[in-house]
């Protein structure tokens, strides 16, 4: 791989697995999507340049996820490791693709940069919000290979 942009990122501890409750095993209990469930879907996405997950790099945090199950909305703020990270769009796109595949289509997913943490925050957000450009990107086989690597099996 070419030179790493952020040579020595801070690495954080992973959170503990979600504890199963009795209700989780009861088929009759309606189990709406919550922040923890969304976090679990995306926290093991790999960083494009480090053998670490987005959770370990604090790119994703549960506290920056908002879910309104009734209104079908999921909103995610992610924090690039450095303010000039050129991978920001790719990371955002990986989060989008993962949720596109995992969530029922009723959900409107918004993926944006945590305000104030990236130099080109506005333009990255605009690209990630533009569903037509996202659709075109997803037809790019090279890009999809990279994204699939990011959202594939987590590295142990």
């Amino acid at each position, binding site marked *: 791989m070419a030179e790493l942009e952020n040579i020595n990122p801070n690495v954080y501890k992973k959170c503990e697995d979600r504890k199963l409750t009795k209700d989780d095993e009861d088929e009759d209990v309606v189990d709406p999507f919550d922040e923890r469930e969304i976090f679990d879907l995306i926290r093991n996405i790999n960083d494009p340049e480090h053998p670490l997950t987005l959770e370990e790099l604090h790119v994703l945090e549960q506290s920056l996820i908002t879910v309104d199950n009734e209104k079908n909305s999921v909103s995610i703020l992610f924090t690039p490791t450095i303010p000039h990270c050129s991978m920001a769009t790719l990371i955002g796109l990986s989060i989008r693709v993962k949720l596109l595949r995992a969530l029922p*289509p*009723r959900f*409107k997913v918004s993926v944006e940069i945590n305000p104030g943490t990236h130099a080109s925050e506005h333009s990255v957000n*605009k690209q990630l*919000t*533009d*569903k*037509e*450009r996202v*659709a*075109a990107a997803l*037809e790019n086989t090279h890009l999809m290979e990279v994204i699939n690597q990011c959202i594939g099996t987590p590295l142990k």
Partner: protein
Amino acid sequence: MPLMTVENQSEKEKMKLLQTLTGHLGRVWSASWHPSGTIFASCGEDKTIHVWMKNDADRWIAETVLTKGHTRTIRDVAWSCCGHYLASASFDTTVAVWDKKSGEFECNATLEGHDNEVKSVTWSRSGGMLATCSRDKSVWIWEVHSAPDQEDEYECVAVLNGHTQDVKKVCWHPHEDILASASYDNTIRMYRQDAADNEWEMLEPMESHSSTVWSISFDATGKRLASCSEDKTIKIWQQYGPDNTLGIPCPDKGTVWKCVCTLSGFHTRSVYDIDWCKRTGLLATACGDDMVRIFREAADSDPNEPTFELLETVMAHYQDANKVAWHPVIPGMLLTASDDGKIKLWQYEDEA
């Protein structure tokens, strides 16, 4: 309890669902009525064009499915005003022109030149010209040369590089050879031919939206334009000539377009399409909140500061609504298309 609510039963009945059409796999991006209103074409991410007609039981069916024109998503389709040609714009960077000269729909011309995804295609009123726009930031104007018993030829007569970003939509004026385009750079631009040298020139950019302008539509007079945007608003633009009574200065280009009305607070997400009915004057919008809304200019509206009222909001689809198209002949008949893969036909009945 508010006096006016979308849950109100009597309001709901104003928008009657005529038929739900399935057939596309995945998102339906666009659709276009044949000028006769007896046929329409639709397209989407499944790379097909469906041509719909009514069967004997008065139901719309996909009479033909065109699968061989494009290798990627088909973003837009448009019938020529004469009704003989159908053009399709694709992410594969090409525009295909289809006709039925052989008895079956066939792609008899492929327009190449854009460097990136083609987002929209439109035919001039006369049918002599075609315009396309692309992710490559340019708008192209093509002249159609056709002669009996000869193959049609398409000549690119202008490449217009006014926009600084992805161009989302092109739309011809209803009577004149004036073209409008809308872009990711938040602006709308108009183009016309200079009478002296026939060169295509750009008018001043129309700036007011604060995010991507997804679509535009002229009214029947061509003196007004409606635009819709990622910024969740609709704007109405009015053309002013040198003789205008308001004293609005007109530059050397002759006319100037001013934003005279902004409809904000009605849409909760991006507004992906707008269509201004040439017969009824009704405005329809397609929104990322799955809703289709209908607006009308208020009876006591001041032409220089018009007011529009929301007549109807209908939960039209289960996912984003991408397209709205008024029927060219039947007043109040509306087509909508969505990410949910469905096309719906509606009849709007005014209370009057």
